[in-house]
C-alpha cells in the first residue's frame, strides 16, 4: 500500500533525491568512509610507539588475535556480560509489565522516573554506582549490613567485578524492557480474550495460547534492541572498572580502546573493531529481517 501513495505526487515533481542528498552525503562521508578506513587499517601493522612505517600485513592482525587467548577471553567476557544483563533485565521487566499492565494511568504519571536510568548521562550513572558500591564507605554495603550481609567488594574484586557491572546495566535497562512490554500488553486486542472466555479457557491456557503469541513480536524487538545495545556498552565499564581488575571486565569494546589508545597498536585495535562490527551486524541483520517481516504483515 505504502508504495502507491507517492504515485500522483511523483508525477508532479520528482525531486525525491534532492531531499535525500544531504543525508546521503553524510552517510557516505561520515559512516561509509570511516568504515572502509577501519577495514583498511585492520590489514596493516602500525605501532605508533615504534618508528616503523605503517605497512600491510594483510590478515596477520586477525591471525594474531585468533591465536591469542586474551582475545577469546574478551569475547567470552563480552558474551557473558550481554547474556546476563539482557536475560536478567528481561526476567524482571517482563513480569513487572504483566503485573502493572492494568495500572497504565499511574505509570504514565511516573514515566519520567522510569525513563531516567536509561537517558541520564551514562558516565554520571557509572560514577554514582562506583560511589554507592564502594566496599568500605558505600551505601549499598551499609544497607546489606543491616540485613546481615557483610563486605562485598564489588568492582574491586575480580570475582564480583563483572557481575557488579551487570547489576548497573540491569538497573539502567530493566525499565526499557518494562516500558516496551507494557506497550505490548496495552496493545493487545480484546476480541481473542472474549472468545477465550466463551470457550471457557483457563487463565493459564489464555496466557500460553493467546497472550504469549500476541506479545512475541514486542518481546523479540525488546530483546534484539537490548542484545545489540549491551554489546555496545562502553561508558559504564570504562568509568567504573576500565577493564579491570586484571582483565576480568575487558570486553571487546574496552580491548579495542586499550589497543588503539593505550598501546597504540592501531592495526590490531582496528581488527578488534571489525570483529565487534561483525558480531553486531549479525544481530542487526536479525533485527532488519524481523522489522521487514513485520511491516509486510
Amino acid at each position, binding site marked *: 500500500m505504502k508504495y502507491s501513495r507517492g504515485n500522483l505526487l511523483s508525477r508532479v515533481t520528482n525531486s525525491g533525491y*534532492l531531499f535525500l542528498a544531504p543525508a546521503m552525503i553524510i552517510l557516505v562521508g561520515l559512516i561509509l568512509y570511516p568504515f572502509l578506513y577501519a577495514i583498511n587499517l585492520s590489514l596493516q601493522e602500525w605501532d605508533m610507539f615504534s618508528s616503523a612505517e605503517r605497512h600491510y600485513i594483510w590478515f596477520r592482525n586477525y591471525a594474531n588475535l585468533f591465536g591469542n587467548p586474551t582475545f577469546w577471553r574478551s569475547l567470552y567476557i563480552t558474551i557473558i556480560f550481554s547474556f546476563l544483563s539482557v536475560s536478567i533485565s528481561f526476567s524482571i521487566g517482563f513480569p*513487572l509489565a504483566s503485573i502493572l499492565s492494568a495500572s497504565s494511568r499511574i505509570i504514565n504519571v511516573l514515566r519520567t522516573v522510569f525513563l531516567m536510568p536509561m537517558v541520564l548521562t551514562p558516565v554520571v550513572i557509572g560514577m554514582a554506582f562506583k*560511589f554507592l558500591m564502594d566496599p568500605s564507605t558505600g551505601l549499598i554495603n551499609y544497607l546489606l549490613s543491616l540485613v546481615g550481609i557483610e563486605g562485598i567488594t564489588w568492582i574491586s574484586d575480580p570475582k564480583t567485578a563483572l557481575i557488579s557491572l551487570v547489576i548497573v546495566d540491569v538497573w539502567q535497562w530493566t525499565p526499557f524492557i518494562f516500558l516496551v512490554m507494557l*506497550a505490548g500488553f496495552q496493545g493487545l486486542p480484546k476480541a481473542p480474550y472474549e472468545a477465550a472466555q466463551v470457550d471457557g479457557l483457563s487463565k493459564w491456557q489464555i496466557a500460553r495460547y493467546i497472550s504469549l503469541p500476541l506479545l512475541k513480536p514486542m518481546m523479540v524487538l525488546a530483546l534484539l534492541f537490548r542484545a545489540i545495545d549491551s554489546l555496545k556498552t*562502553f561508558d559504564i565499564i570504562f568509568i567504573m572498572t576500565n577493564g579491570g581488575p586484571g582483565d576480568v571486565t575487558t570486553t571487546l569494546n574496552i580491548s579495542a580502546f586499550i589497543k588503539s589508545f593505550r598501546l597504540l597498536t592501531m592495526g590490531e585495535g582496528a581488527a578488534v573493531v571489525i570483529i565487534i562490527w561483525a558480531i553486531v551486524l549479525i544481530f542487526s541483520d536479525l533485527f532488519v529481517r524481523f522489522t521487514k517481516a513485520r511491516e509486510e504483515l
Partner: protein
Amino acid sequence: MEEFIAYLRKIIVPIVLVGLVIVCFFPIFYIVLTSFKPADLVFSMPPVWIFKPTLKAYYRVFELVPDFPTRVFNSTVVAVVSTFFATTIGTLAAYALSRFEIKAKEHFAFFILSTRFAPPVGFVVPFYLIFSEVALIDTLTGLFLVHIMINLSFTVWMMRGIFDSIPVEYEEAAMVDGMTRFQALRRIVLPAAKGGIAATAIFAMIMSWNEFVFALTLCNLRANTLPIALPKLDQMSIVQWEVVCACGTMIIIPMVLFTFLGQRYLIRGLTMGTVRG
C-alpha cells in the same frame, strides 16, 4: 480463588510501584543529596539524611575543573548545532522516504538503520585518525560532524514514522490548489508534524549531551565537553565524592528536564520508532 487473586493484585500493585520508583530514583537522588553535603559527612555510615546544605562542592568543581564554563558552552553549542542539522537533514530524508517513489529506497532506509547498531568504539579509531589528518581533532566542528553522524539514523527513522502517519491527501489538495512541493511541505506537512519534530530534536539533544567516548578521544583542550570532566575528577589521588556528585548533578540537570519534556516519545526514540510506548 478469582476474588483472592484480584485482592492480591490490589495489594501487590502499589507495593511493586513504590519499590520500582525507589529503585529507579534513589541512586540519582542520593548523588544530588551528597553533592550538598559538607565533606566530613559524605562517608559517615549510617548516612546522614538531614544536614545543613552547602555549595562548597560546587565551588570545588570550578576549582578542580577550571574550564568548566567553557565545557558548559561547548556541550551546549555542540548539542544545539548538531541537533539542528541532524533533525533538518533527517526530516528531509524522511520526507523523501515517506512520500517519493525511489529506487531501492528500502535498502537505503535499512542502511541508515544499520548505522544505529554500529558500536561507537568502532568509529572512534577511524575518526581519530581521519580527524588527525584533516586537523579536526579538538575542534567543535569535528564534534558537530560526529554528533550529526550519531543522530542521523535516528532522526530519519523517527521522522519517517511521523510522516507516514500524516495523510498524504493534505499535500495533494494543497498542490492541486497550486502550491509547489516545498510550499506544501512548509505550510501543510511540517506544521502537522510539529510535535514529532520537537520530540525528535529532544531525543537527539539528549544523545548529543551524553556522548562520551568520542569526546574522550577527540578532545583534549579547547573542545572539551562536560561528560569527560568526570574521569578527570575520578583520577585525582583522593577522589572527593561530594565534588564528583556536584559535577554529575550539574551534568544531568538539563537531561532531567528533557526527559520530562520528551517522556511520551522517548521509548519510541530508543526503538527507532518501532515501538509506540
